[in-house]
């Protein structure tokens, strides 16, 4: 049987508050398994324990109880982090470095040789669309550009697992779409992705499976199609038919005691409309 990419077993995290008797229970008996190549979305409102979960997986903080294994290995070993790339929430990185210098710094930390890192940096700058801004300092980057360079640094050492904490927070819709496309292309290479977000539409579009955290507890988990499907309803979208045919169809449904819940023209999403309009203007 294949080892899960990430296995979180019965993890509880309690933060003691100095000089007070009160303790903050950030996570309670959390169990998670993420299969290799899967995109897993961790959802939850602010303060639900998403970032704490990610930090525990990365070994940045220690669980009070429980354990985390990455491809079967204890996550407290440094070697495990060779397999993981991480994009923190709202990261600003070193503002005084250029895009290329930032990637070179992270390449060195990941143990890449100078020749390998040179070609990898050029490749990643191209992938995230920052080739033209490669020599500009990060202090001049927009929020979206910072997220893209952040994604590039997370991918620099070709990790098997990508951990993304709110990757599109405060990014405009076009930037958000670019990042979503980058996530989708990473999946094609077999990368396992753990994504934390409270942007539900985004999660719905890219994730295979989701877990919903609330007050430190995993209250729901499963495949998206299973969780979102309404069992007693069926949806189909047709084109090139006449209104008469649709009326006839409705009558046939009624004849077998069925009920048409909704009949309307399909609508595009506001995001799609925004992207279409802004792209047309750019051209």
């Amino acid at each position, binding site marked *: 049987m294949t080892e899960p990419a990430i296995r979180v077993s019965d993890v509880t995290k309690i*933060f003691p508050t100095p000089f007070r008797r009160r303790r903050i229970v950030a996570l309670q008996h959390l169990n998670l398994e993420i299969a290799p190549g899967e995109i897993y979305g961790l959802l939850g409102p602010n303060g639900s324990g998403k970032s704490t979960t990610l*930090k525990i997986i*990365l070994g*940045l*903080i*220690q669980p009070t109880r429980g354990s985390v294994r990455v491809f079967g290995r204890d996550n407290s070993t*440094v*070697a495990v*982090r*060779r397999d*993981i*790339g*991480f*994009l*923190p*929430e*709202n*990261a*600003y*990185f*070193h*503002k*005084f*470095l250029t895009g290329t210098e930032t990637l070179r*710094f*992270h390449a*060195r*930390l*990941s*143990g890449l040789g100078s020749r390998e890192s040179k070609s990898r940096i050029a490749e990643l700058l191209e992938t995230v669309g920052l080739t033209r801004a490669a020599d500009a300092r990060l202090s001049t980057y927009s929020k979206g550009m910072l997220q893209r360079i*952040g994604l590039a*640094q*997370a991918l620099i*050492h070709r990790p098997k697992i990508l*951990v993304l904490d709110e990757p599109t927070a405060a990014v405009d819709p076009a930037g958000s779409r670019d990042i979503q496309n980058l996530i989708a292309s990473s999946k094609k290479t077999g990368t396992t992705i753990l994504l934390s977000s409270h942007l539900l539409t985004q999660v719905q579009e890219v994730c295979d499976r989701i877990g919903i955290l609330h007050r430190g507890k995993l209250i729901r988990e499963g495949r998206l199609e299973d969780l979102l499907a309404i069992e007693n309803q069926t949806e189909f979208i047709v084109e090139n038919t006449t209104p008469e045919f649709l009326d006839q169809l409705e009558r046939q449904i009624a004849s077998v005691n069925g009920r048409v819940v909704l009949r309307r023209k399909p609508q595009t999403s506001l995001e799609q409309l925004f992207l279409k309009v802004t792209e047309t203007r750019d051209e």
Partner: protein
Amino acid sequence: MSSSLGRIGAIARTTFIELARLRVFYVLILFALVLIISSSFIARISFQQELQVTRDIALGAINFFLSMLAIVATAQLLPRDLEDRVIYSVLAKPVRRFEYMMGKFFGVLGLLTISLIAMSVLCLAVIHLREGSAVRETMQQMTQSPPEELERALTGLHQAGVNQDLAFALLLTLMKAAVLASATLCISSFATSNIFTISAMAMVYLVGHLETIARDYWLHQHSAGWLIRAFLALVLLFFPDLQAFNLSDQIIAGASLSSLALTKLLGLGAVYIVGYLVIAIAIFTQREL
């Protein structure tokens, strides 16, 4: 091992670039320059005294500048990395926490060394020029004097000018700044703000300079009991004796420092640095980010 050194080197290099681009760095250089240049306006008593006072001011300025730079620059390293969340992307890589701390320390040390070299070049140039002009003027004024008297005057000038003792004093100034940087890193490994770190270091700086006087007073003026001795030993253990690294007074007084004494002082500094770094790493390794 080599990859560990590579990671420490990468963090040190980035830390150096970060610090070199801080505005406070340039303000402090300006301050030091003002102090050094102010030595040009000393009332002349004798050539030898003028040179001695110039050296005193220059060494004092460098000493103060490097010490402040060591504290201020080091104090903001960890809080800034936490604020910008750089620390998460760095430690999520295969980087051990001791490598991170060592990288930070060596980055600061690089900055202090470069600063000292820049300041020393300026300081030595000013002293060398003044020494040259003092020698010329002395020779002109003492043309009628006996050769022994002239020889004595010139020896006095050379002793007050650029020589080995001055180089030793500068080396110890760097060691003192490195001790302060390691102590600052130690405090910031558990501090939650750089204000706290700087305030705590101001106390360390003060105690470090006064403890010799206090120790001499308690041990020689009073009949010190075991409690006082234990307290003084404890103070010495945690607060570095910073006054030991200040050689300007001895040099002004014309005393020469032996190589053995220099080695002992460098060894003392190294012990403090290693001690502070070990504590800093131990605390930081346990710290939840």
